[in-house]
């Protein structure tokens, strides 16, 4: 299959079931909300190395406190991991930001599927930072914790909603040069960031050091994706076609299969419009490890 003259390989991206949650960060203005959101979602590219994958989803349509807000999505392997990392990140990155407040972004994508949702206790554990001077306030059906801080109070919701989500959707852009690959990746990311319910956890939404399972070293469980590294082509079984000199990958985490599919669709479509892109493929493990398979050619139909 060809799209915009670019070959779309008949393969699929293999993704995993993870736990996802949406955190809404508000502050006095966009600048401070963004500082908090960037800090909270920083160093969260890969769940293996960072414990959690995270990114800014976009501005919140309607925040609980009426101020400017940003929705951030977090993905972890388990509910327990999610709680552990959210406590750290909200405590160290959001609570520390002047004027900030933090709310459960809820997951309307799962409306009517309440039995599939879980709650993690975040505010109820962060509250101890208040050194016994903290107080709670129940508004509606939600409990919020008020933690005294030096500019007033940090307000954080007690519980955050967690759902089964998808991590590791991906596609690879094979291009004739590093410049072309980067331009294509940038174009793809720009389009994909318009889709709600997904994040691209790597810097700028793009990863150059794609990985493979296993290594020549016994102590390493993952290593560089040798089959797609152009500088070692010929020294092993390469998957790079002739004329391809650079590969970039875009990894997508999403709340639903549909959101990930849609993001991949618009991203691939944008990438294939950039001159120099030769092929689009995807990473998988033969279908043995991940439950969610995103077949490129089906997504693009």
């Amino acid at each position, binding site marked *: 299959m060809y799209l915009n003259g670019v070959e779309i390989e008949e393969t699929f991206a293999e993704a995993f079931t993870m736990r996802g949650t949406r955190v809404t960060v508000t502050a006095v203005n966009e600048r401070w909300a963004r500082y908090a959101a960037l800090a909270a979602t920083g160093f969260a590219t890969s769940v293996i190395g960072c414990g959690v994958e995270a990114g800014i989803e976009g501005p919140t349509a309607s925040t*609980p*406190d*009426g101020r400017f807000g940003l929705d951030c999505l977090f993905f972890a392997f388990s509910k327990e991991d999610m709680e552990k990392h959210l406590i750290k990140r909200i405590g160290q990155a959001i609570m520390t930001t002047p004027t900030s407040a933090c709310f459960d972004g809820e997951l309307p994508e799962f409306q009517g599927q309440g039995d599939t949702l879980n709650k993690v206790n975040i505010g109820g554990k962060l509250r101890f930072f208040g050194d016994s001077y903290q107080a709670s306030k129940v508004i509606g059906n939600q409990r919020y914790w008020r933690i005294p801080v030096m500019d*007033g109070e940090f307000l954080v919701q007690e519980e955050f909603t967690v759902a089964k989500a998808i991590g590791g959707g991906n596609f690879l852009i094979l291009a004739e040069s590093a410049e072309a690959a980067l331009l294509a990746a940038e174009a793809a990311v720009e389009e994909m960031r318009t889709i709600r319910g997904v994040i691209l956890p790597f810097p700028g939404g793009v990863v150059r050091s794609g990985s493979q399972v296993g290594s020549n070293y016994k102590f390493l469980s993952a290593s560089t994706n040798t089959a797609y590294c152009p500088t070692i082509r010929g020294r092993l079984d390469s998957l790079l076609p002739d004329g391809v000199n650079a590969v970039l990958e875009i990894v997508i985490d999403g709340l639903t299969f549909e959101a990930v599919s849609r993001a991949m669709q618009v991203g691939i479509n944008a990438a294939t419009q950039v001159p120099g892109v030769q092929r689009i493929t995807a990473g998988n493990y033969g279908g043995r490890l991940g439950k969610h398979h995103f077949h490129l050619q089906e997504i693009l139909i």
Partner: protein
Amino acid sequence: MKTQVTLVLKKIPSVPVEAESINPENVTEKGIQEIESMLLWCGNRQARVGDYFDVEIASLEETKNGVADPVFNSSNKGQKNLAKLVLQGDLSKFKRLGQGMAAGEMVIQGSVGFHAGALMRGGTLVIQENAADWLGAHMEGGHIRVKGSVGHFVGSAYRGKTKGMTGGTILIGGNAGQMLGARMARGLIAVEGDCGDVPGFGMMAGTILIQGTPGIRVGAKMHRGTVILFQPKVLLPTFYYNCTYKVPFWSLLYNQLIREGFSLPASSQDVSFRRYSGDANEGGKGEILICLCH
């Protein structure tokens, strides 16, 4: 199909009637005769609903008015099978209406006597005129909306009890009497008008909001909880000033009150408050927030 049961008062009793049996759960799926035979106590004499009310039952078109009461919208999910109960007339001599109700909608088109909505656990009670003392005493959940004024001890603890209301919302359109929310331990009481002396007496948690002028000794003996005043007030000396700041939870509370039809000035949406801690005699963990919107 959801039904509406309407009780139209035909005779005002000469002595107070204990009417705790009248609530949406007790009238649902009953015929007119069954409802008329429900028992009441009139002084020391047993009476029946039919002695005082004409009973009507009609099917209820849920979209009849296009826009439903926001209070109902927020509280009646999953309760669609319960009949809506409407009472018409001056029910000032009927005590304990809606007492202990756990679900459904009850609308009283008139005034009510003592203990309305006391021990309520859920559902919505709307009183379109005034309510007497002990409204929502020991309430655990649900919504009470009074469009007129209320008596003393709203949401309070009965004599000898240590905890008043422990949940739910009471919104009052008019004035309130003394000891508003005495010993309340969670929940929200908001008053659009003035209120009598000692609001928030012995409060343990929860929120009281008074838009009008409060009486003396606001928050006396409060342990925890929040009293929000919209009018400046000289406080007891056992309350001490902390700071002036924008209270982060205020915008959430403001939005909730507006959603539920409570009237607040738009200018108060983004305001600062003077915060006082107290009662120092009780540990000082309570707070009085005085709005600087005036």
